[in-house]
């Protein structure tokens, strides 16, 4: 793993440590044991006879389990250790660690083994923003257990630390006096268990670590077995595909309401929670592979759909949530994430996902089950999203001006939406892709109304609205002198006229007039947007363009997967293949794990993709990217009860087979052969 940081997790419980297995967190240093957005352990340091250990190697066994091989002393070049240490750790209601010490000498040894432990019970938001705690700490040592506690009014959290071998327990940790015969070994189990009190939760017991590990291993095996298999002449694609499936398994998150089923969280480890936008996009990408993620996403987001007008949470009736958190700052309303609704794309995309899910799986029961939610989402677009009230477009402007999000579209950084000259529009803003999503939601909502809800009147109305929106949009957003769609309209109705990758999402949504599609495709693959690896978020030549600016020039793999889907939708097969090929070739440089974003430098200039530094890896929608690119390359499209296969892939990929694709057709195979010549543009 990178940066000498080791992460293991199960859902939203995760451990981040250094390469020795030690945790030595400060308020700003993001290591520790975390669960439900709270740090339950901020110090966990192993010493032997008062000395820290050095790492020989780390074995990442699975995403939920790791093993550290250590020897006494640090920083020595030449190691001649008489003893060695193995820490095997797995996540289980906190974590379980088997600590084993091996004596390699021909004499017995007597050692003092010490584990220093402490917790700051920081909220994830406090770790990010380095804030001070308001509650009080307690420490008790009873019955061979060390219990660390935190209390702020009724809010209590506790960490229980115990061992299988008896230890001397003090308020700062556990000490073992150990005698190991020559060539012998000594082992103790260590359990660190998290307890969230007050939320109707009994303190959790330490689960049997062996059974917990077996359960997680079986679950991962079943996950991999159920997914379609790949055969391909180009080996890196096989490796990338497998990496994506394993990472997606790790990114699964089972919210308390989902009855044990899971949905994709946004990123590991800091975004292991429900995000409307990220969960929906990732579910869309993974639909041909693991459709059950979409079903859980739709149900869970439906359960939390907004019903009130609440300015603090930016909540409206029908709105789909942006982010849910469980920590102290959320509990005390110092942050609005209970849940927070400040996203304007999640709501139309909710309807898009519901329809796409039905097209693949034929599961009309779920579409019936979620009829009220889908109708409320469509109503939100009409009643609440048009902030000026008379434009027919989706706008955003936060009502929570203190802790709400300013930019409620996926390009959510402060400078992402700009005019050509670099100036920034005021609020509200109506970014272009939002209008595409609204269009698509209505077209798809009409299909569901007719097919499943048996409401022709609604279908006709939605189709009429969609057609009107398309007509207006193609007039109001089209930048005539550049032949592309503006990034947004500002509050005066002016075009925010910079060129960005958002144009690709417009193709995906279907809102683009056929007559304009060719010009848009030309831009997406043109020198200003296409780097050779992928489409930049913002075009070269715009005042704010910066190849390593977060949303103003970097290449986002997730963005590109939807751009490729959009190009296919309008018949630009070769162009889609070119993007798929660039992104998948980039993936090879990251061992199959695409980062959230990489630099927008010309491919010919750097020869390799320059990673943009981000805290989370893997990121859900980057993980889903190779899956959606496989779909676009093979041209997989449900039509009635059949799966249409219409491959267009680059020559370098050679022969490609995707076997046992699940859907309403049962399981089918798809084949393709690489015939598209790519890379003539930028190398």
């Amino acid at each position: 793993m990178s940066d000498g940081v080791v992460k293991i997790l199960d859902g939203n419980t995760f451990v981040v440590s250094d390469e020795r297995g030690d945790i030595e967190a400060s308020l700003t240093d993001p290591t520790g044991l975390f669960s439900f957005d709270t740090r339950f352990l901020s110090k966990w340091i192993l010493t032997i006879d008062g000395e820290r250990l050095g790492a020989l190697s780390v074995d990442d066994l699975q995403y939920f389990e790791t093993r550290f091989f250590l020897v006494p002393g640090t920083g020595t070049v030449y190691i001649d250790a008489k003893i060695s240490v193995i820490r095997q750790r797995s996540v289980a209601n906190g974590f379980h660690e088997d600590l084993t010490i091996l004596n390699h000498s021909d004499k017995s040894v007597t050692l003092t083994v010490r584990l220093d432990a402490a917790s700051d019970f920081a909220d994830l938001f406090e770790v990010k923003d380095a804030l001070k705690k308001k509650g009080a700490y307690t420490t008790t040592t009873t019955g061979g257990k060390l219990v660390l506690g935190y209390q702020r009014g009724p809010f209590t959290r506790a960490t229980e630390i115990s061992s299988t071998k008896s230890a001397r327990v003090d308020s700062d940790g556990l000490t073992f006096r150990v005698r190991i015969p020559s060539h012998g070994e000594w082992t103790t189990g260590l359990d660190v268990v998290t307890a969230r009190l007050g939320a109707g939760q009994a303190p959790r017991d330490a689960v049997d670590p062996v059974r917990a590990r077996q359960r997680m291993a079986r679950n991962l095996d079943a996950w991999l077995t159920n997914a379609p298999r790949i055969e391909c002449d180009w080996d890196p694609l096989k490796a990338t595909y497998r990496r994506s499936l394993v990472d997606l398994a790790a990114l699964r998150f089972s919210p308390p309401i989902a009855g044990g089923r899971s949905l994709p969280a946004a990123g590991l480890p800091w975004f292991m929670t429900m995000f409307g936008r990220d969960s929906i996009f990732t579910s869309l990408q993974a639909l041909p592979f693991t459709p059950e993620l979409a079903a859980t996403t739709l149900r869970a987001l439906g359960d939390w759909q907004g019903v009130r007008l609440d300015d603090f949470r930016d909540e409206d009736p029908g709105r789909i949530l942006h982010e849910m958190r469980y920590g102290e700052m959320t509990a005390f309303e110092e942050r609005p994430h209970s849940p927070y609704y400040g996203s304007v794309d999640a709501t139309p995309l909710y309807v898009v996902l519901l329809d796409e899910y039905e097209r693949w799986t034929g599961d009309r029961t779920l579409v019936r089950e979620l009829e009220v939610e889908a109708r409320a989402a469509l109503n939100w677009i009409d009643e609440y999203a048009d902030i000026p009230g008379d434009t027919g477009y989706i706008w955003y402007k936060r009502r929570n001006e203190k802790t709400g999000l300013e930019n409620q579209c996926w390009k959510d950084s402060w400078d992402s939406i700009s005019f050509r000259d670099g100036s920034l529009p005021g609020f509200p803003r109506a970014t272009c892709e939002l209008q595409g999503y609204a269009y698509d939601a209505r077209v798809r909502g009409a299909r569901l109304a007719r097919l499943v809800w048996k409401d022709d009147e609604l279908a006709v109305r939605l189709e009429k609205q969609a057609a009107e929106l398309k007509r207006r949009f193609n007039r109001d957003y089209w930048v005539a002198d550049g032949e592309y769609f503006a990034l947004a309209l500002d509050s005066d109705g002016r075009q925010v006229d910079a060129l960005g990758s958002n144009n690709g999402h417009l193709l995906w949504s279907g809102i683009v007039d056929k007559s304009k599609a060719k010009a848009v495709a030309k831009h997406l693959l043109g020198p200003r947007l296409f780097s050779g690896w992928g489409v930049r978020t913002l075009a070269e030549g715009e005042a704010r363009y910066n190849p390593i600016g977060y949303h103003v020039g970097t290449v986002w793999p997730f963005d590109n997967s939807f751009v490729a889907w959009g190009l296919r939708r309008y018949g630009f097969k070769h162009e889609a293949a070119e993007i798929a090929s660039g992104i998948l070739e980039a993936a090879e440089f990251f061992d199959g794990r695409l980062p959230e974003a990489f630099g927008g430098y010309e491919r010919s200039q750097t020869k390799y993709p320059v990673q943009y530094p981000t805290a989370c890896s893997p990121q859900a929608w980057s993980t889903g990217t190779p899956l959606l690119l496989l779909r676009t390359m093979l041209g997989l499209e449900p039509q009635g009860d059949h799966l249409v296969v219409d491959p267009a892939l680059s020559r370098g990929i050679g022969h490609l087979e995707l076997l046992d694709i699940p859907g309403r057709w049962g399981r089918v195979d798809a084949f393709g052969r690489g015939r598209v010549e790519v890379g003539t543009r930028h190398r």
Partner: protein
Amino acid sequence: MATTKRDPTEGFFAELAERGDEPLLRKANGTTRFDIVDGKRTTRWLVTLDKGRVAVSRRAVASPDCAIRANKALFDRLASGKENAVAAILRGDLVAEGDWRLLVRMQRLFPGPRKLKRTGTAGYARRRG
């Protein structure tokens, strides 16, 4: 105009009993027991949801699907939209146990801080009958 100030908690349950059909709760079925603690006195309410139909009673039920416990002052604030139920649960002010999916549905019954001018699904609600 002289009106006696209505007790928010009493008002909440009275209003709930009058609602009858609630589209937002059509998927939630089950019983929820509310224990409202006021000093030494605990008032108990039972809310039963059956495919969107809401029934309120003071019946005692030994094993409801959900149990919610709060002190009267907090519940008054919840009932008048001054307090958020989810945050109160996370904090531990509102103790909730049982079927989480039903709980998430139940919290929809509490009003928000602002009055709704428009109903949630105005133009999109299915016509009944």
